[in-house]
Protein backbone atom coordinates (compact mmCIF):
# COMPACT_ATOMS: atom_id res chain seq x y z
CA UNK A 1 0.00 0.00 0.00
CA UNK A 2 1.68 3.22 -1.15
CA UNK A 3 -1.00 5.82 -0.53
CA UNK A 4 -4.02 6.41 1.69
CA UNK A 5 -7.22 7.64 0.07
CA UNK A 6 -9.98 10.07 1.06
CA UNK A 7 -12.04 7.01 1.96
CA UNK A 8 -9.26 5.74 4.24
CA UNK A 9 -9.10 9.04 6.13
CA UNK A 10 -12.86 9.23 6.60
CA UNK A 11 -12.93 5.62 7.87
CA UNK A 12 -9.78 6.15 10.00
CA UNK A 13 -11.23 9.18 11.80
CA UNK A 14 -14.54 7.41 12.43
CA UNK A 15 -12.56 4.44 13.81
CA UNK A 16 -10.54 6.89 15.90
CA UNK A 17 -13.72 8.39 17.35
CA UNK A 18 -14.68 4.89 18.52
CA UNK A 19 -11.19 4.20 19.85
CA UNK A 20 -11.26 7.43 21.89
CA UNK A 21 -14.67 6.52 23.31
CA UNK A 22 -13.23 3.14 24.36
CA UNK A 23 -10.20 4.78 25.99
CA UNK A 24 -12.20 7.56 27.66
CA UNK A 25 -11.98 6.26 31.21
CA UNK A 26 -8.31 5.33 31.03
CA UNK A 27 -7.47 8.84 29.72
CA UNK A 28 -9.50 10.39 32.56
CA UNK A 29 -7.64 8.27 35.13
CA UNK A 30 -4.27 9.34 33.70
CA UNK A 31 -5.32 12.99 33.78
CA UNK A 32 -6.81 12.57 37.26
CA UNK A 33 -3.45 11.60 38.71
CA UNK A 34 -1.93 15.02 37.97
CA UNK A 35 -4.82 17.12 36.60
CA UNK A 36 -8.55 17.39 37.13
CA UNK A 37 -9.43 14.16 35.34
CA UNK A 38 -11.54 15.33 32.42
CA UNK A 39 -9.18 14.75 29.48
CA UNK A 40 -10.92 11.54 28.41
CA UNK A 41 -14.42 12.96 28.50
CA UNK A 42 -13.26 16.10 26.65
CA UNK A 43 -11.67 14.02 23.88
CA UNK A 44 -14.71 11.75 23.69
CA UNK A 45 -17.13 14.69 23.47
CA UNK A 46 -15.07 16.25 20.69
CA UNK A 47 -14.63 13.09 18.66
CA UNK A 48 -18.30 12.17 18.99
CA UNK A 49 -19.04 15.45 17.18
CA UNK A 50 -16.21 14.79 14.71
CA UNK A 51 -17.91 11.48 13.91
CA UNK A 52 -21.20 13.27 13.27
CA UNK A 53 -19.47 15.92 11.15
CA UNK A 54 -17.68 13.37 8.94
CA UNK A 55 -20.78 11.22 8.55
CA UNK A 56 -22.48 14.15 6.80
CA UNK A 57 -20.11 13.49 3.93
CA UNK A 58 -19.62 16.81 2.08
CA UNK A 59 -15.83 16.76 2.45
CA UNK A 60 -14.15 16.19 -0.94
CA UNK A 61 -10.48 15.81 0.02
CA UNK A 62 -8.17 14.81 2.85
CA UNK A 63 -7.38 18.41 3.79
CA UNK A 64 -11.09 19.14 4.13
CA UNK A 65 -11.63 16.07 6.33
CA UNK A 66 -8.75 16.96 8.65
CA UNK A 67 -9.77 20.63 8.76
CA UNK A 68 -13.35 19.71 9.69
CA UNK A 69 -11.95 17.43 12.40
CA UNK A 70 -9.78 20.22 13.81
CA UNK A 71 -12.39 22.97 13.74
CA UNK A 72 -14.94 20.66 15.35
CA UNK A 73 -12.52 19.92 18.21
CA UNK A 74 -11.60 23.60 18.66
CA UNK A 75 -15.17 24.85 18.64
CA UNK A 76 -16.83 22.13 20.69
CA UNK A 77 -14.48 21.02 23.44
CA UNK A 78 -12.93 24.06 25.13
CA UNK A 79 -10.17 23.81 27.72
CA UNK A 80 -6.65 22.95 26.65
CA UNK A 81 -7.64 19.65 25.04
CA UNK A 82 -9.91 21.08 22.35
CA UNK A 83 -7.61 23.81 21.21
CA UNK A 84 -4.39 21.78 21.24
CA UNK A 85 -5.72 18.68 19.50
CA UNK A 86 -7.86 20.83 17.21
CA UNK A 87 -4.79 22.87 16.25
CA UNK A 88 -2.97 19.64 15.39
CA UNK A 89 -5.61 18.59 12.86
CA UNK A 90 -6.00 22.12 11.44
CA UNK A 91 -2.21 22.29 10.98
CA UNK A 92 -2.08 18.85 9.39
CA UNK A 93 -4.95 19.82 7.08
CA UNK A 94 -2.87 22.64 5.58
CA UNK A 95 -0.28 20.10 4.42
CA UNK A 96 -3.04 17.94 2.93
CA UNK A 97 -4.99 20.72 1.23
CA UNK A 98 -6.70 19.48 -1.94
CA UNK A 99 -5.07 16.03 -1.70
CA UNK A 100 -7.07 12.93 -2.54
CA UNK A 101 -4.30 10.54 -1.60
CA UNK A 102 -1.41 10.70 0.85
CA UNK A 103 1.86 8.78 0.72
CA UNK A 104 4.55 8.52 3.37
CA UNK A 105 6.06 11.89 2.41
CA UNK A 106 2.63 13.47 2.82
CA UNK A 107 2.16 11.84 6.21
CA UNK A 108 5.52 13.22 7.31
CA UNK A 109 4.59 16.70 6.10
CA UNK A 110 1.11 16.55 7.67
CA UNK A 111 2.34 15.47 11.09
CA UNK A 112 5.16 18.03 11.01
CA UNK A 113 2.66 20.79 10.17
CA UNK A 114 0.36 19.54 12.92
CA UNK A 115 3.16 19.62 15.47
CA UNK A 116 4.14 23.12 14.39
CA UNK A 117 0.57 24.35 14.86
CA UNK A 118 0.37 22.77 18.31
CA UNK A 119 3.59 24.41 19.43
CA UNK A 120 2.69 27.77 17.92
CA UNK A 121 -0.57 27.85 19.88
CA UNK A 122 0.36 25.96 23.05
CA UNK A 123 4.01 27.07 23.40
CA UNK A 124 5.04 23.61 24.71
CA UNK A 125 8.57 22.37 24.06
CA UNK A 126 9.83 18.79 24.11
CA UNK A 127 10.46 17.81 27.74
CA UNK A 128 7.57 19.88 29.15
CA UNK A 129 5.53 16.70 29.77
CA UNK A 130 2.82 17.31 27.20
CA UNK A 131 1.41 15.70 24.05
CA UNK A 132 4.40 17.22 22.21
CA UNK A 133 6.61 14.59 23.85
CA UNK A 134 4.73 11.84 22.00
CA UNK A 135 4.04 13.80 18.83
CA UNK A 136 7.56 15.08 18.13
CA UNK A 137 9.13 11.56 18.06
CA UNK A 138 6.32 10.41 15.75
CA UNK A 139 7.06 13.30 13.38
CA UNK A 140 10.74 12.36 13.39
CA UNK A 141 9.90 8.68 12.79
CA UNK A 142 7.72 9.61 9.80
CA UNK A 143 10.51 11.75 8.35
CA UNK A 144 12.93 8.85 8.61
CA UNK A 145 10.34 6.42 7.22
CA UNK A 146 10.01 8.66 4.18
CA UNK A 147 13.80 8.80 3.75
CA UNK A 148 13.94 5.01 3.86
CA UNK A 149 11.09 4.74 1.39
CA UNK A 150 8.74 2.86 3.71
CA UNK A 151 5.11 2.34 2.70
CA UNK A 152 2.31 4.10 4.56
CA UNK A 153 1.34 1.11 6.71
CA UNK A 154 4.90 0.59 7.88
CA UNK A 155 5.38 4.34 8.35
CA UNK A 156 2.33 4.60 10.61
CA UNK A 157 3.53 1.56 12.53
CA UNK A 158 6.95 3.08 13.29
CA UNK A 159 5.36 6.44 14.08
CA UNK A 160 3.00 4.77 16.53
CA UNK A 161 5.92 3.00 18.23
CA UNK A 162 7.92 6.23 18.45
CA UNK A 163 4.93 8.02 19.99
CA UNK A 164 4.52 5.25 22.56
CA UNK A 165 8.18 5.50 23.55
CA UNK A 166 7.82 9.27 23.81
CA UNK A 167 4.73 8.86 25.97
CA UNK A 168 6.60 6.47 28.27
CA UNK A 169 9.37 9.04 28.71
CA UNK A 170 6.85 11.59 30.05
CA UNK A 171 6.61 9.40 33.18
CA UNK A 172 9.98 10.70 34.37
CA UNK A 173 9.32 14.34 33.51
CA UNK A 174 8.20 17.21 35.69
CA UNK A 175 5.48 19.25 33.99
CA UNK A 176 6.63 22.70 32.90
CA UNK A 177 3.37 23.91 31.41
CA UNK A 178 -0.34 23.54 32.15
CA UNK A 179 -2.06 22.75 35.41
CA UNK A 180 0.16 19.72 36.06
CA UNK A 181 3.14 22.02 36.56
CA UNK A 182 1.80 22.98 39.99
CA UNK A 183 2.32 19.33 40.98
CA UNK A 184 6.12 19.75 40.82
CA UNK A 185 7.86 16.50 41.78
CA UNK A 186 4.50 14.84 42.39
CA UNK A 187 3.93 14.63 38.62
CA UNK A 188 6.94 12.34 38.26
CA UNK A 189 5.81 8.72 37.95
CA UNK A 190 2.71 9.53 35.91
CA UNK A 191 2.50 9.63 32.12
CA UNK A 192 0.91 12.66 30.49
CA UNK A 193 -2.68 12.12 29.38
CA UNK A 194 -2.25 14.24 26.24
CA UNK A 195 0.73 12.14 25.19
CA UNK A 196 -1.40 9.04 25.79
CA UNK A 197 -4.06 10.49 23.46
CA UNK A 198 -1.45 10.97 20.72
CA UNK A 199 -0.64 7.26 21.05
CA UNK A 200 -4.35 6.39 20.82
CA UNK A 201 -4.58 8.46 17.62
CA UNK A 202 -1.55 6.87 15.97
CA UNK A 203 -2.47 3.35 17.10
CA UNK A 204 -5.90 3.78 15.59
CA UNK A 205 -4.63 5.29 12.30
CA UNK A 206 -2.10 2.44 11.94
CA UNK A 207 -4.73 -0.19 12.72
CA UNK A 208 -7.18 1.17 10.14
CA UNK A 209 -4.36 1.33 7.57
CA UNK A 210 -3.87 -2.41 8.00
CA UNK A 211 -7.47 -3.51 8.41
CA UNK A 212 -9.17 -1.18 5.96
CA UNK A 213 -6.55 0.58 3.81
CA UNK A 214 -9.12 1.54 1.19
CA UNK A 215 -11.63 2.76 3.77
CA UNK A 216 -14.21 0.01 3.25
CA UNK A 217 -15.92 -1.05 6.45
CA UNK A 218 -14.44 -4.21 7.84
Amino acid sequence: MQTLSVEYWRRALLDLAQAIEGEKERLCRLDGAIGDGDHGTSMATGFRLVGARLASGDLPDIGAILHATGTTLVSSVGGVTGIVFGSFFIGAAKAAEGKTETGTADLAAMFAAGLEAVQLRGKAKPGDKTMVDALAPAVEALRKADEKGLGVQEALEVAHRAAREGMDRTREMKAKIGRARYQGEKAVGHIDAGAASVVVILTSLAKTAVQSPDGSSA
Partner: protein
Amino acid sequence: MAMKKLINDPSEVVQELVEGFALANERLVRKHPRVNAVIRNDAPVPGKVAVVIGGGAGHEPLFLEYVGPGMADAEAHGQIFAAPSPDVVLAAVKAVSAGKGVMLLYNNYEGDRLNFDMAQDMARDEGIEVVTVLINDELASAPRGEEAQRRGTTADHVVIKIAGAVAETKAPLNEVVRVTRKAVSWARSLGVGLSSCTLPATGMDIFEIADDEMEIGMGLHGEPGVERIKLLTADETVERILPRILEDLPYEDGDEVILVINGYGGSTRMEMFIVNRKLRRMLSEAGIKVHSTEVGEFCTSQEMKGMSITLVKVDDELKRYFDMPCLSPFYVKQ
Protein backbone atom coordinates in the same frame (compact mmCIF):
# COMPACT_ATOMS: atom_id res chain seq x y z
CA MET B 1 -16.52 10.47 48.63
CA ALA B 2 -19.06 9.32 46.04
CA MET B 3 -20.61 12.02 43.89
CA LYS B 4 -24.03 13.15 45.11
CA LYS B 5 -25.48 15.85 42.84
CA LEU B 6 -28.93 16.64 41.44
CA ILE B 7 -28.11 16.56 37.75
CA ASN B 8 -29.34 14.84 34.60
CA ASP B 9 -27.04 13.63 31.82
CA PRO B 10 -23.53 14.70 32.98
CA SER B 11 -22.62 15.81 29.48
CA GLU B 12 -25.56 18.26 29.48
CA VAL B 13 -24.74 19.91 32.81
CA VAL B 14 -23.42 23.20 31.42
CA GLN B 15 -26.09 23.64 28.77
CA GLU B 16 -28.81 22.97 31.35
CA LEU B 17 -27.33 25.25 34.01
CA VAL B 18 -26.98 28.15 31.57
CA GLU B 19 -30.56 27.67 30.33
CA GLY B 20 -31.90 27.55 33.88
CA PHE B 21 -29.86 30.58 34.88
CA ALA B 22 -31.10 32.63 31.93
CA LEU B 23 -34.71 31.72 32.70
CA ALA B 24 -34.27 32.78 36.32
CA ASN B 25 -32.91 36.16 35.20
CA GLU B 26 -34.74 36.85 31.97
CA ARG B 27 -35.36 40.49 32.88
CA LEU B 28 -31.61 41.14 32.95
CA VAL B 29 -29.90 38.68 30.61
CA ARG B 30 -30.44 36.30 27.73
CA LYS B 31 -28.67 33.15 26.61
CA HIS B 32 -26.99 33.27 23.22
CA PRO B 33 -29.20 31.20 20.86
CA ARG B 34 -26.35 28.92 19.74
CA VAL B 35 -23.67 28.74 22.44
CA ASN B 36 -23.34 28.82 26.24
CA ALA B 37 -22.84 32.57 26.46
CA VAL B 38 -24.88 34.99 28.57
CA ILE B 39 -25.58 38.51 27.27
CA ARG B 40 -27.07 41.50 29.04
CA ASN B 41 -30.46 42.30 27.58
CA ASP B 42 -29.69 45.87 26.48
CA ALA B 43 -26.43 44.92 24.68
CA PRO B 44 -24.86 46.14 22.53
CA VAL B 45 -25.00 49.42 24.46
CA PRO B 46 -24.25 52.33 22.09
CA GLY B 47 -21.06 54.28 22.79
CA LYS B 48 -19.84 51.85 25.42
CA VAL B 49 -16.77 49.62 25.66
CA ALA B 50 -17.96 46.02 26.02
CA VAL B 51 -16.53 43.93 28.86
CA VAL B 52 -16.55 40.19 28.10
CA ILE B 53 -15.72 37.77 30.90
CA GLY B 54 -15.71 34.00 31.12
CA GLY B 55 -14.06 30.79 32.13
CA GLY B 56 -14.74 27.20 33.04
CA ALA B 57 -18.05 26.20 34.58
CA GLY B 58 -18.39 24.80 38.08
CA HIS B 59 -17.35 28.05 39.79
CA GLU B 60 -20.79 29.67 39.87
CA PRO B 61 -21.71 32.47 40.53
CA LEU B 62 -18.63 33.17 38.38
CA PHE B 63 -18.78 34.23 35.74
CA LEU B 64 -22.27 34.25 34.29
CA GLU B 65 -23.97 35.90 37.27
CA TYR B 66 -21.75 38.98 36.85
CA VAL B 67 -23.46 40.13 33.65
CA GLY B 68 -25.68 43.21 33.69
CA PRO B 69 -25.67 47.01 33.81
CA GLY B 70 -22.58 48.24 35.66
CA MET B 71 -21.01 44.80 35.34
CA ALA B 72 -19.93 42.71 32.34
CA ASP B 73 -21.73 42.86 28.99
CA ALA B 74 -21.36 39.16 28.21
CA GLU B 75 -19.96 35.97 29.59
CA ALA B 76 -18.60 32.85 27.88
CA HIS B 77 -19.27 29.71 29.94
CA GLY B 78 -16.95 26.74 29.40
CA GLN B 79 -17.36 23.11 30.39
CA ILE B 80 -16.78 22.14 34.03
CA PHE B 81 -13.30 23.42 34.97
CA ALA B 82 -12.44 23.85 31.27
CA ALA B 83 -12.22 27.12 29.33
CA PRO B 84 -14.94 28.06 26.83
CA SER B 85 -14.00 27.37 23.22
CA PRO B 86 -13.01 30.28 20.94
CA ASP B 87 -16.37 29.87 19.25
CA VAL B 88 -18.26 30.73 22.45
CA VAL B 89 -16.00 33.69 23.27
CA LEU B 90 -16.26 35.09 19.74
CA ALA B 91 -20.06 34.75 19.79
CA ALA B 92 -20.13 36.64 23.11
CA VAL B 93 -17.85 39.39 21.73
CA LYS B 94 -19.91 39.86 18.58
CA ALA B 95 -23.16 39.96 20.52
CA VAL B 96 -22.05 42.94 22.62
CA SER B 97 -19.51 44.86 20.54
CA ALA B 98 -20.77 48.41 20.00
CA GLY B 99 -17.82 49.60 17.96
CA LYS B 100 -16.03 51.17 20.94
CA GLY B 101 -13.77 48.23 21.63
CA VAL B 102 -13.98 45.09 23.72
CA MET B 103 -12.04 44.17 26.84
CA LEU B 104 -11.60 40.44 27.49
CA LEU B 105 -11.25 39.94 31.25
CA TYR B 106 -10.58 36.49 32.67
CA ASN B 107 -8.44 34.39 34.98
CA ASN B 108 -4.88 33.49 34.08
CA TYR B 109 -5.02 29.77 33.24
CA GLU B 110 -3.39 28.12 30.23
CA GLY B 111 -6.66 26.78 28.84
CA ASP B 112 -8.37 30.14 29.13
CA ARG B 113 -5.48 31.98 27.49
CA LEU B 114 -5.36 29.55 24.56
CA ASN B 115 -9.07 29.79 23.84
CA PHE B 116 -9.55 33.52 24.52
CA ASP B 117 -6.41 34.36 22.51
CA MET B 118 -7.73 32.49 19.49
CA ALA B 119 -11.08 34.26 19.86
CA GLN B 120 -9.22 37.56 20.13
CA ASP B 121 -7.37 36.82 16.87
CA MET B 122 -10.66 35.95 15.17
CA ALA B 123 -12.41 39.09 16.45
CA ARG B 124 -9.52 41.30 15.32
CA ASP B 125 -9.68 39.66 11.89
CA GLU B 126 -13.29 40.88 11.78
CA GLY B 127 -12.16 44.42 12.61
CA ILE B 128 -13.17 44.47 16.27
CA GLU B 129 -10.71 46.22 18.61
CA VAL B 130 -9.96 43.82 21.46
CA VAL B 131 -7.67 44.12 24.49
CA THR B 132 -7.07 41.39 27.08
CA VAL B 133 -6.64 41.89 30.81
CA LEU B 134 -5.70 38.81 32.85
CA ILE B 135 -6.52 38.38 36.52
CA ASN B 136 -3.66 36.81 38.54
CA ASP B 137 -4.28 37.34 42.24
CA GLU B 138 -3.53 33.87 43.66
CA LEU B 139 -0.16 34.22 45.34
CA ALA B 140 0.49 30.54 46.15
CA SER B 141 0.73 29.67 42.46
CA ALA B 142 4.03 31.48 41.78
CA PRO B 143 6.53 33.43 43.88
CA ARG B 144 6.92 37.20 44.04
CA GLY B 145 8.64 38.48 40.92
CA GLU B 146 6.75 35.90 38.82
CA GLU B 147 3.30 37.45 39.23
CA ALA B 148 2.54 36.94 35.53
CA GLN B 149 2.53 33.17 36.17
CA ARG B 150 -0.07 33.38 38.91
CA ARG B 151 -3.59 32.01 38.59
CA GLY B 152 -6.68 34.13 38.97
CA THR B 153 -9.32 33.52 41.61
CA THR B 154 -11.53 35.54 43.91
CA ALA B 155 -10.25 38.99 42.97
CA ASP B 156 -12.65 38.52 40.04
CA HIS B 157 -15.49 39.72 42.25
CA VAL B 158 -13.91 43.12 42.82
CA VAL B 159 -12.12 43.48 39.48
CA ILE B 160 -15.19 42.72 37.35
CA LYS B 161 -17.27 45.13 39.46
CA ILE B 162 -14.74 47.92 38.94
CA ALA B 163 -14.21 47.18 35.23
CA GLY B 164 -17.96 47.13 34.63
CA ALA B 165 -18.36 50.47 36.40
CA VAL B 166 -15.64 52.18 34.38
CA ALA B 167 -17.12 50.89 31.12
CA GLU B 168 -20.61 52.00 32.17
CA THR B 169 -19.37 55.63 32.37
CA LYS B 170 -18.59 55.28 28.62
CA ALA B 171 -14.92 55.78 29.27
CA PRO B 172 -12.70 54.89 26.28
CA LEU B 173 -11.11 51.44 26.00
CA ASN B 174 -7.64 52.51 27.17
CA GLU B 175 -9.15 54.06 30.30
CA VAL B 176 -11.22 50.93 31.09
CA VAL B 177 -8.05 48.86 30.66
CA ARG B 178 -5.91 51.19 32.79
CA VAL B 179 -8.24 51.17 35.78
CA THR B 180 -8.88 47.42 35.53
CA ARG B 181 -5.15 46.69 35.43
CA LYS B 182 -4.63 48.87 38.49
CA ALA B 183 -7.26 46.89 40.42
CA VAL B 184 -5.65 43.59 39.34
CA SER B 185 -2.17 44.75 40.33
CA TRP B 186 -3.37 45.64 43.83
CA ALA B 187 -5.24 42.35 44.42
CA ARG B 188 -3.87 39.33 46.29
CA SER B 189 -5.64 36.13 47.35
CA LEU B 190 -4.78 33.02 49.30
CA GLY B 191 -7.10 30.19 50.17
CA VAL B 192 -7.34 27.03 52.17
CA GLY B 193 -8.92 23.78 50.98
CA LEU B 194 -10.48 21.40 53.51
CA SER B 195 -12.03 18.81 51.19
CA SER B 196 -12.09 17.80 47.53
CA CYS B 197 -14.94 18.10 45.06
CA THR B 198 -16.32 15.76 42.42
CA LEU B 199 -16.61 16.37 38.68
CA PRO B 200 -20.04 15.70 37.15
CA ALA B 201 -18.49 14.08 34.06
CA THR B 202 -16.44 11.51 35.96
CA GLY B 203 -18.09 11.36 39.40
CA MET B 204 -14.61 11.27 40.89
CA ASP B 205 -12.88 13.37 43.53
CA ILE B 206 -10.35 15.65 41.85
CA PHE B 207 -7.82 15.12 44.64
CA GLU B 208 -7.50 13.38 47.99
CA ILE B 209 -7.20 14.98 51.38
CA ALA B 210 -7.57 13.32 54.78
CA ASP B 211 -10.45 14.21 57.10
CA ASP B 212 -8.11 15.90 59.57
CA GLU B 213 -6.05 17.85 57.02
CA MET B 214 -6.18 21.21 55.28
CA GLU B 215 -4.11 22.64 52.46
CA ILE B 216 -2.95 26.26 52.41
CA GLY B 217 -2.91 27.71 48.91
CA MET B 218 -5.05 24.97 47.37
CA GLY B 219 -6.08 25.94 43.84
CA LEU B 220 -9.65 26.15 42.59
CA HIS B 221 -9.20 22.91 40.65
CA GLY B 222 -7.24 21.06 43.34
CA GLU B 223 -3.86 22.44 42.25
CA PRO B 224 -1.46 21.76 45.14
CA GLY B 225 -0.86 24.62 47.54
CA VAL B 226 2.10 25.68 49.61
CA GLU B 227 1.62 23.39 52.60
CA ARG B 228 -0.62 20.55 53.77
CA ILE B 229 -1.14 20.59 57.53
CA LYS B 230 -3.44 19.29 60.26
CA LEU B 231 -6.74 21.13 60.44
CA LEU B 232 -6.37 24.37 62.40
CA THR B 233 -8.98 26.55 64.09
CA ALA B 234 -10.43 29.53 62.20
CA ASP B 235 -8.23 32.01 64.08
CA GLU B 236 -5.07 29.93 63.58
CA THR B 237 -5.88 29.60 59.88
CA VAL B 238 -6.22 33.36 59.49
CA GLU B 239 -2.92 33.79 61.35
CA ARG B 240 -1.30 31.55 58.72
CA ILE B 241 -2.91 33.13 55.69
CA LEU B 242 -3.19 36.87 56.28
CA PRO B 243 0.51 37.62 56.92
CA ARG B 244 1.41 35.92 53.61
CA ILE B 245 -1.08 38.15 51.81
CA LEU B 246 0.01 41.32 53.60
CA GLU B 247 3.71 40.84 52.89
CA ASP B 248 3.19 39.98 49.22
CA LEU B 249 2.00 43.31 47.79
CA PRO B 250 2.81 44.53 50.49
CA TYR B 251 -0.21 46.11 52.16
CA GLU B 252 0.96 48.72 54.66
CA ASP B 253 -0.13 50.80 57.60
CA GLY B 254 -2.59 53.40 56.31
CA ASP B 255 -3.69 51.43 53.24
CA GLU B 256 -7.35 50.96 52.49
CA VAL B 257 -8.67 47.68 51.08
CA ILE B 258 -11.72 45.81 49.91
CA LEU B 259 -11.80 42.52 51.82
CA VAL B 260 -13.36 39.41 50.27
CA ILE B 261 -14.08 36.25 52.25
CA ASN B 262 -15.04 33.66 49.67
CA GLY B 263 -16.53 30.25 50.38
CA TYR B 264 -15.51 27.49 47.94
CA GLY B 265 -18.97 25.92 47.96
CA GLY B 266 -18.98 23.52 50.90
CA SER B 267 -18.28 25.86 53.81
CA THR B 268 -20.90 27.74 55.80
CA ARG B 269 -21.48 31.45 56.25
CA MET B 270 -21.10 30.76 59.96
CA GLU B 271 -17.45 29.85 59.32
CA MET B 272 -16.94 32.84 57.02
CA PHE B 273 -18.12 35.30 59.68
CA ILE B 274 -15.90 33.69 62.30
CA VAL B 275 -12.97 34.07 59.89
CA ASN B 276 -13.94 37.67 59.21
CA ARG B 277 -13.87 38.54 62.92
CA LYS B 278 -10.23 37.50 63.18
CA LEU B 279 -9.33 39.10 59.84
CA ARG B 280 -10.72 42.46 60.92
CA ARG B 281 -8.83 42.33 64.22
CA MET B 282 -5.54 41.58 62.51
CA LEU B 283 -6.08 44.17 59.77
CA SER B 284 -6.89 46.77 62.39
CA GLU B 285 -3.68 45.90 64.25
CA ALA B 286 -1.76 46.32 61.00
CA GLY B 287 -3.31 49.76 60.49
CA ILE B 288 -5.21 48.70 57.36
CA LYS B 289 -8.66 50.19 56.87
CA VAL B 290 -11.45 48.16 55.26
CA HIS B 291 -13.51 50.08 52.72
CA SER B 292 -15.93 47.20 52.09
CA THR B 293 -16.22 43.62 53.37
CA GLU B 294 -17.64 41.10 50.90
CA VAL B 295 -18.68 37.81 52.50
CA GLY B 296 -20.17 34.97 50.50
CA GLU B 297 -19.65 32.53 47.65
CA PHE B 298 -18.19 34.39 44.68
CA CYS B 299 -15.82 31.86 43.18
CA THR B 300 -16.73 28.30 44.11
CA SER B 301 -15.27 24.94 43.28
CA GLN B 302 -18.35 22.70 43.30
CA GLU B 303 -18.86 21.27 46.81
CA MET B 304 -15.28 21.87 47.98
CA LYS B 305 -14.95 22.92 51.61
CA GLY B 306 -12.65 25.82 52.36
CA MET B 307 -12.38 29.49 51.62
CA SER B 308 -10.16 32.14 50.18
CA ILE B 309 -9.25 35.58 51.44
CA THR B 310 -8.73 38.44 48.98
CA LEU B 311 -7.47 41.95 49.60
CA VAL B 312 -7.68 44.63 46.95
CA LYS B 313 -5.94 47.88 47.80
CA VAL B 314 -8.11 50.81 46.77
CA ASP B 315 -7.50 54.50 46.20
CA ASP B 316 -10.18 57.16 45.67
CA GLU B 317 -10.59 56.18 42.03
CA LEU B 318 -11.09 52.45 42.67
CA LYS B 319 -13.41 53.16 45.60
CA ARG B 320 -15.53 55.43 43.43
CA TYR B 321 -15.94 52.77 40.73
CA PHE B 322 -16.52 49.95 43.22
CA ASP B 323 -19.28 51.96 44.92
CA MET B 324 -21.17 52.84 41.71
CA PRO B 325 -24.53 51.13 41.15
CA CYS B 326 -24.76 47.83 39.31
CA LEU B 327 -27.51 45.35 38.54
CA SER B 328 -26.34 41.83 37.87
CA PRO B 329 -28.21 38.66 38.82
CA PHE B 330 -25.78 37.93 41.63
CA TYR B 331 -24.62 41.33 42.81
CA VAL B 332 -26.62 44.53 43.09
CA LYS B 333 -25.48 47.93 44.30
CA GLN B 334 -27.96 50.81 44.64
